[in-house]
């Protein structure tokens, strides 16, 4: 056959894998009296009296009124009449239907959403509590009958284009029956799209510590010691504060936080250690977690201030490469932690640690070069009060052994039933995702083999690798009281505003998380 025909035909056949689906989204109430929401796709309105109105060509919501060409169907669907409008007071909720091409669905839910009584209850609870905040998936291990928070996964991956892999060190080191069980929870008003879970195991000497580095690679550090000096940007000696993982944590000095302005938003800690003889690098070991500054930036400034406009921003704009890249580049530059080392030409940035989340402590190792003969001077810089740092230590020896990878053996749902579909979704980093909504939980089971008797074999350290992203539910409070007239624009001004608001609130992550988390049992 003529190649000019064969090639187009081949492309046509390959196009047969295009898969359409119908996506269902809630229709939101306008954020302010003068504001409006227009939906161009079919909308179904569920009324308090049990009847249903279908607006096949979409509708417009202005103030308390819905307008559009619709058909109202009685409870039994036997009678129908044409309608041109409704009052919002008569509506329980509205759903819009859109044809989409493949891709995990974005589901944004507010209190008007009618995705079920449970979601409605969650929305109402969230509307009542202005401190609602998100937290990404949380992972718990079973310690003698008590669930212990181990880690939180892919923090701040707030759109599919930000999908990330996280590796977290787990605290338990033994698996007496050869099985590791981790409860995975969605305790926030979010939809989680979890792509992949696997367990990494590293065997090591008793005096060694296993940690992930800033790029999620396992690293074994030895000879950990506190820094010989540590001062923050305000000149405080914070060496003793950072010497041990004891719960006494570093936070930015209140006066420095008060002085943060556009153009000068950073705090820093400068540490020094003697340069180890013959070594060209050392390892900075950190135990830290984010303050809620980041949460305010994400949820109050990025999503809350624009109100209903955030629905489009998250559901559409952030699915586009351009806006997503712009946000990612800004975020990478401004947030997290920059690690710099002093050399002949001054400090040089050598690594970046991304934000890890405000709930679980994260242990992480960062290898930095030694650029001066007698000492290594390392600067950790970050937005003012972005971190709670429990420990900074330095290791002079390290190695990078290949970990043993344990694939996910089984997923057990909340009713203790195996869920083979969920396991298949989580088995590999591919196009399949396990989607969870607020209040859902499941148990990830890994068969890791029986632990040898103590003293016979080297200790084992497990690290959990998780990959995915999540979308925030747009909260009622954000919808009814927007502060901005446009969607979020990455800028120093936005970060300065977040810091200003954070100065006023300064809840502790633990208090806020415990007060606002969604129960899963």
């Amino acid at each position, binding site marked *: 056959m003529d190649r*000019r*025909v064969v090639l*187009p*035909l081949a*492309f*046509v*056949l390959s*196009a*047969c894998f*295009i*898969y*359409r*689906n*119908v996506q*269902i989204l809630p229709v939101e109430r306008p954020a302010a009296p003068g504001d409006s929401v227009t939906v161009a*796709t*079919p909308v*179904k309105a*569920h009324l308090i*009296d*049990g009847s*249903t*109105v*279908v607006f*096949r060509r979409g509708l417009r919501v202005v103030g308390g009124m819905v307008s559009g060409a619709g*058909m109202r*169907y009685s*409870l*039994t*669907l036997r009678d129908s009449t044409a309608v041109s409008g409704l009052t919002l007071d008569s509506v*329980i*909720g509205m*759903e819009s*239907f*859109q*044809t989409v091409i493949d891709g995990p669905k974005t589901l944004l839910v507010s209190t008007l959403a*009618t*995705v*079920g*009584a449970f979601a*409605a209850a969650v929305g109402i609870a969230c509307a009542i509590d202005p401190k609602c905040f998100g937290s990404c998936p949380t992972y718990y291990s079973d310690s003698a009958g008590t669930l212990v928070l181990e880690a939180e996964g892919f923090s701040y991956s707030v759109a599919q284009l930000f999908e990330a892999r996280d590796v977290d060190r787990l605290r338990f080191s033994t698996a007496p029956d050869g099985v590791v069980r981790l409860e995975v929870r969605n305790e926030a008003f979010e939809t989680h799209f979890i792509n992949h879970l696997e367990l990494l195991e590293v065997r090591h000497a008793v005096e060694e510590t296993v940690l992930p580095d800033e790029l999620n690679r396992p690293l074994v550090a030895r000879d950990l010691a506190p820094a010989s000096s540590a001062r923050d940007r305000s000149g405080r000696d914070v060496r003793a504060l950072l010497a041990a993982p004891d719960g006494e944590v570093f936070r930015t000095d209140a006066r420095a936080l008060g002085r943060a302005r556009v153009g000068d938003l950073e705090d820093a800690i400068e540490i020094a250690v003697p340069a180890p003889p013959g070594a060209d690098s050392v390892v900075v070991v950190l135990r830290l977690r984010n303050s809620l500054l980041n949460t305010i930036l994400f949820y109050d400034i990025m999503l809350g201030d624009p109100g209903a406009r955030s629905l489009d921003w998250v559901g559409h704009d952030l699915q586009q490469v351009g806006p997503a890249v712009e946000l990612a580049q800004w975020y990478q530059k401004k947030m997290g932690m920059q690690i710099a080392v002093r050399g002949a030409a001054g400090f040089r940035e050598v690594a970046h640690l991304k934000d890890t989340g405000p709930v679980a402590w994260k242990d992480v190792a960062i290898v930095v070069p030694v650029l001066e003969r007698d000492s290594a001077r390392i600067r950790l810089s970050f937005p003012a009060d972005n971190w709670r740092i429990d420990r900074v230590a330095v290791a002079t020896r390290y190695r990078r052994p290949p970990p043993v990878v344990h694939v996910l053996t089984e997923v057990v*749902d*909340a009713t203790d*039933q195996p*869920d083979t*579909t*969920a396991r298949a979704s989580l088995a590999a980093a591919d196009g399949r995702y*396990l*989607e*969870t*909504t607020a209040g*859902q939980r499941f148990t990830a089971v890994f068969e890791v083999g029986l632990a040898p008797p103590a003293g016979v074999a080297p200790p084992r350290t497990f690290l959990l690798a998780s990959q995915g992203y999540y979308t925030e539910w747009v909260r009622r409070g954000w919808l009814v009281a927007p502060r901005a007239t446009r969607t979020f624009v990455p800028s120093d001004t936005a970060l300065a505003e977040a810091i200003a608001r954070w100065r006023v609130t300064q809840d502790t992550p633990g208090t806020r998380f415990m007060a606002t988390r969604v129960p899963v049992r």
Partner: protein
Amino acid sequence: MRRSSIVLALVFGFMGCAVGPTTRNFGPAAGPQGIAANLRVRWGPKGRVQGELLEVQDTALVLLSANRVVLVPLRVIIAGQFSRRGTLIEEGRASRRSLDRLRIVSRFPAGLTPEIRTRLLAAYGQTAPDGPP
């Protein structure tokens, strides 16, 4: 002429090759009704219940089948197939995720209030839904 034929073939090919539902042919998007359900069950003479999905409860589905409101516990469902959604219930088991997905395409995604339930049953001459004991 030949080039235009190929272009036309490509256009029609692309149009015909997309699969999956759209808002035009997906029942819950095109009309007021909930998704169509086809349940193979361990109950009744036919061992099958077909109809419109009205409500999804935690442990049961409520269907409108042959002008009767029927409550079908998940435990009696051998296989539950749903239009354009495939088999989501097997051997009495459905993940919470599957139930959530079904709920949003049921007629009453927010659930039936007691008052609407009573009115709906009355409209079909019932005081309680049919269903296995």
